[in-house]
């Protein structure tokens, strides 16, 4: 046995089944939240704001809001997926099974990313109700959404291994991800920032994600699409390296 395909599929299906069981929180909550953003920022406030480089404000914020949800949900799902069995103790079965880093990655991270992609589709459909937007490069958009979902599911997996309490599970998304996404140019163009913030903001990885996705929508953004893809791939590689390290040393999983 070199790669445990059946075991991997079992984990993948098990994790997705958890989503269906909690369909309400999993899909409806994020959809409701983003809808509120569209109504408030897009509809109410957006109508009084100028177009952003020719794109109406309501449409301008669609990619950013979508990215915000993908990041938050990917991280939350993947971290919960591995943290819960650690918390209940059922992780013993996973650790004693012929399951290695490859199976875990495809199973847990794959399931979390799948869920985020499904959610992204639902949110894009919902956005249509409130906003008139178009996607200039749909294939690249789909690819970029997938890439971001995978990257942040990887981050979530690491978080789920690291956390030793439910609070910690929430602290990172709250204290790190939320500020980074809000300062990541979802609601504004970084061209609007004064120096030095314009430069400082380029160190925020979320800027590349939001603008990368925005470019696939409207063909224009604050950063180059190539730079966005490179940054995301780099982040992904870093996360995979950390996870490989976790498995090699048994950190937080094996005593």
């Amino acid at each position, binding site marked *: 046995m070199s790669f445990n395909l059946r075991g991997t599929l079992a984990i993948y299906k098990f994790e997705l089944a958890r989503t269906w069981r909690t369909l309400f929180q999993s899909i409806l909550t994020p959809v409701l939240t983003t809808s509120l953003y569209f109504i408030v920022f897009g509809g109410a406030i957006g109508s009084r704001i100028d177009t952003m480089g020719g794109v109406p404000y309501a449409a301008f914020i669609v990619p950013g809001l979508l990215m915000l949800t993908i990041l938050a949900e990917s991280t939350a799902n993947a971290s919960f997926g591995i943290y819960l069995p650690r918390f*209940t103790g059922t992780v013993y079965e*996973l650790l004693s099974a012929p399951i290695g880093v490859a199976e875990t990655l495809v199973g847990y991270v794959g399931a979390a990313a799948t869920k985020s992609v499904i959610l992204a589709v639902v949110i894009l459909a919902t956005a249509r109700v409130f906003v008139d937007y178009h996607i200039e490069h749909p294939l690249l958009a789909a690819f970029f959404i997938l890439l971001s979902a995978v990257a942040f599911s990887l981050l979530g997996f690491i978080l789920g291994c690291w956390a030793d309490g439910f609070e910690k599970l929430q602290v990172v998304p709250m204290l790190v991800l939320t500020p980074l996404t809000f300062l990541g140019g979802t609601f504004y163009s970084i061209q609007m920032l004064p120096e030095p913030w314009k430069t400082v903001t380029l160190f925020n990885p979320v800027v590349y994600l939001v603008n990368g996705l925005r470019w696939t929508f409207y063909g224009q953004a604050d950063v180059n699409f190539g730079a966005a893809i490179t940054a995301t791939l780099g982040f992904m590689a870093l996360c995979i390296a950390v996870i490989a390290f976790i498995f090699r040393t048994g950190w937080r999983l094996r005593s």
Partner: protein
Amino acid sequence: MGAILEIEGLQKTYAGGVTALQPTDLTINKGEIFALLGPNGAGKTTLIGLVCGLVRPSGGTIRAFGLDMARDWRKARARIGLVPQELSVDMFEYVLPAVTHSRALFGRPADPAKIEKLLKSLSLWEKRDQRISALSGGMKRRVLIAKALAHDPDLLFLDEPTAGVDVELRRDMWQLIGQLRDQGVTIILTTHYIEEAQEMADRVGVIDRGVLQLVEEKRALMARLGTTEAKIALAQPVSAIPAALEHFGLAIEDGGKVLCYHGAGEGEVAPLLKALLAEGIDFTGIDVHESSLEDIFVDLIGRNHHDQEAAR
């Protein structure tokens, strides 16, 4: 009988600095039931965790089915089952899907008929649609056993399978373990009920403070360290022991009304009784007590701790 598990120099020191297992050698034979006995904190769960991949060894090698666990762990683990000491269950999982999931996790193709048979053999079939978290402790334990058996392991670890289980369920468990052995499954179990080891095990290992003190065939152990005591109530009091009975080493008690016998191993109570009758000594009652594995165990561990105290 070949070896199914070979452990050499295996040791574990936890991150906190506790050495739970001193370098240990142990070989488990194919098809046997091996009982690991020892007081709380002796290192039983640690030893099991090391073999099953839950605990990382600090040193030594483990070979299962002739495979090196450090290299061929996927292949080896696919044939090992584990029932943990703690009752860990998923809060949202249901019995049948959980057991089906376990089989897939270990890389085996789905086999609903086999799972049905397994659940029936554990009296879980009626509960298949229930939430595991809503089951009683004993039933949860059965679910964990079903999960561990779902992939037809050749080597099964049972970490205190009968802790907190009622008498009836314990009997069932013993029966199940007997059946598994008949199917050729090798079983390593830990227990605090020594009567359990006495009832089922082929060999016993006694571990204390991370040191495997002794590994021996149960029968040989009992013959070597066991004792038999018999008290024979006589119809007529005697004042002295007849010469023909002297080699039994009898003692007279209760003013000659009771004869006391104390022998090693399984003793020779039957020859003694025959000799008594031959001498024309009639008796009204006999009370025989054979020491159990428990007596041996308590003795061994007690002596051990005494020696360690004395060494200080």
